[in-house]
């Protein structure tokens, strides 16, 4: 049903003929609940922005980790959940983001701008890479990305500045007083997470979003109604690489030291996949929810080390086997719960007032 709805959306958007014939129908892009969600989101962001006034360094430190997880989960979900390309190699971009930051800062760029510039540079690197990698399918794409991440890791190790696995620190940070440093990094991480969530929201509501949701539901069918599958996937691939790189740069800012092994570790993928699978792959809200769940688990159980990782892996299997739609997918399919309008509701005028179930919906 979501396929037919995606198709119908596309046709209402693309062809004036269709628009004319469907004149009595109305495309709804907002619901009252969706408006309230956006409002609450804005309030929460404002509260988080003011939080440093009443909280300490420990709070900001942990919060930066949460924002990094959100960056990873939201952008990986865009790639795997919407574009259908399951990458096990985003740690390559994560590590590159940190590495390029160090290079830029070493070249004299002020340290905080270099965090963002590094992510942009990595996004630019990802564009040519996407031409080759996106030709791969499914498991081949997954491991191909993994090999790519390993190659990035090895190449970074060749740079004398990095000193191999010993690593190096983002020395420029030391020049900034600790209090200012914590505050700026916290705010940058917050802004980054909000920016990526908003970008994802706008992306999904745009033409690309309609194309993406059609690809997610059925790639061949999407192609047959005129969706440029390759171009759409490229946009998402670059977006995901940018997000992972930004996450890596921010992680570096929070931890100061750069050891290639820790940044290019596939562990990041284990975390990210856990977040998105548990939260609900291919749903907008699910990825964010998953990041929060993971963050809470880590905060309370992270001390258990190996057992903790075992549980993460096992729950990824159990979720993939038993609840592939994740927590959010379950809630929204069971209770019709949807907080954010990333799709379109197509409603016939006479049934408009009866509400749910009357129209066709194409929610993300």
């Amino acid at each position, binding site marked *: 049903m979501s396929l037919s709805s995606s198709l119908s959306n596309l046709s209402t958007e693309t062809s004036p003929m269709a628009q004319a014939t469907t004149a009595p129908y109305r495309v709804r892009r907002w619901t009252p609940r969706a408006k309230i969600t956006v409002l609450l989101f804005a309030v929460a962001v404002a509260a988080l922005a003011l939080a440093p006034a009443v909280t300490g360094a420990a709070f900001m430190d942990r919060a930066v980790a949460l924002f990094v997880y959100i960056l990873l989960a939201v952008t990986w979900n865009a790639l795997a959940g919407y574009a259908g390309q399951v990458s096990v190699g985003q740690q390559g971009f994560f590590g590159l983001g940190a590495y390029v930051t160090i290079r830029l800062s070493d070249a004299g760029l002020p340290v905080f701008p270099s965090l963002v510039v590094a992510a942009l540079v990595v996004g630019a690197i990802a564009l040519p890479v996407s031409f080759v990698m996106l030709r791969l399918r499914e*498991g081949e794409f997954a491991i191909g990305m993994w090999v790519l991440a*390993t190659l990035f890791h090895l190449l970074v190790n060749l740079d004398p500045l990095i000193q191999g696995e010993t690593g190096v620190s983002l020395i420029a940070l030391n020049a900034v007083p600790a209090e200012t440093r914590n505050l700026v990094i916290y705010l940058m991480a917050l802004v980054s997470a909000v920016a990526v969530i908003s970008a994802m929201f706008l992306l999904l509501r745009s033409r690309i979003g309609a194309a993406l949701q059609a690809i997610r539901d059925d790639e061949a069918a999407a192609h047959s109604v005129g969706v440029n599958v390759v171009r759409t996937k490229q946009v998402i691939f670059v977006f995901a690489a940018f997000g992972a790189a930004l996450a890596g740069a921010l992680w570096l800012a929070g931890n100061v030291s750069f050891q290639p092994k820790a940044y290019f570790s596939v562990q990041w993928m284990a975390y990210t996949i856990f977040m998105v699978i548990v939260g609900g792959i291919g749903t907008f809200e699910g990825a964010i929810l998953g990041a929060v769940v993971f963050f809470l688990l880590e905060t309370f159980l992270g001390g258990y080390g190996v057992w903790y990782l075992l549980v993460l*892996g096992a729950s990824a299997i159990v979720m993939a086997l038993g609840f592939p739609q994740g927590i959010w997918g379950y809630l929204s399919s069971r209770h019709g719960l949807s907080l954010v309008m990333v799709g379109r509701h197509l409603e016939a005028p006479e049934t408009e007032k009866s509400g749910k179930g009357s129209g066709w919906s194409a929610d993300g």
Partner: protein
Amino acid sequence: MIDILLQGVLLGGYYALLAVGLAFLYSIMGIINLAHGSFAVLAAYLVLAMTDSLGINVWLAVLAVLPIMAVIGALVDRLIFEPVQKGGQLLSVLATFGLSVVIDNLIFQIWGANTRTLANALGDLAWASWEIGGLWVGKVSVYILLAAVGLLTGLTLLIARTPLGRAIRATATDPDTAGLVGVDARRARTIASALAFVAIGVAGAALGMRTTFTPYAGVTQLLFAFQAAVIGGSTSVRGTLFGGITLGLAQTLGATIHTQGFLIGGHLVFFAALFLRLQFGTLRLPKLRRAAA
């Protein structure tokens, strides 16, 4: 130089052996098992446990581990591969990745972080070598290359010539139709999975005999197996051997160019092979029906 080439070929024999299980499973189920490397390392630890704590001869230990691997393979098929396949590729990638995380950390939990090897259990054989025209050739490496050729040939014959092989081929081509003509498709794929895991077991034993391993070595083994399979481009004996040996040569040559060139050389050849195939035709690993035809 000849010495380097020889070492590369022998190393390639190991990679071919490592690639067998991965390529075989893919050709039959279309699943790329991301836990492949972890299971190879698990097999190495199982052999080590038997030789170390039970004092069994290393070859007997390998023979004992292979049926265990077969059972694991059958279980993994029923518990993970089969249910996950209905949900499409996405879920199989996620589930097998989760599985690799579980196996790696279980190994760590049971056997600890130490670097291990089976070389001690092999005794003198571990260092024994033949001298051919002034070159020293390690016996173990040669045995591994021979094992790769033997295993590949055996599997190919089994698939091409026996009733079981026919059932597996039918299942790989179309499980539903295979069922209609009286093939127990479910049984065929479980057996195929068990066979793939036996191959993984042999590769794991080879890993332990030729070098050292740690609980998290599975990641690297998976990447090597995948690279050899993709470079080889098919599940045939020749293709897999070609892939493994090309990878081995690229790595040994890379190592002579730069101290860190070992892995980089392999990765570059892998991407070159990918790129070539993007330009000149099909990229996918061929399904069994084409390879065996």
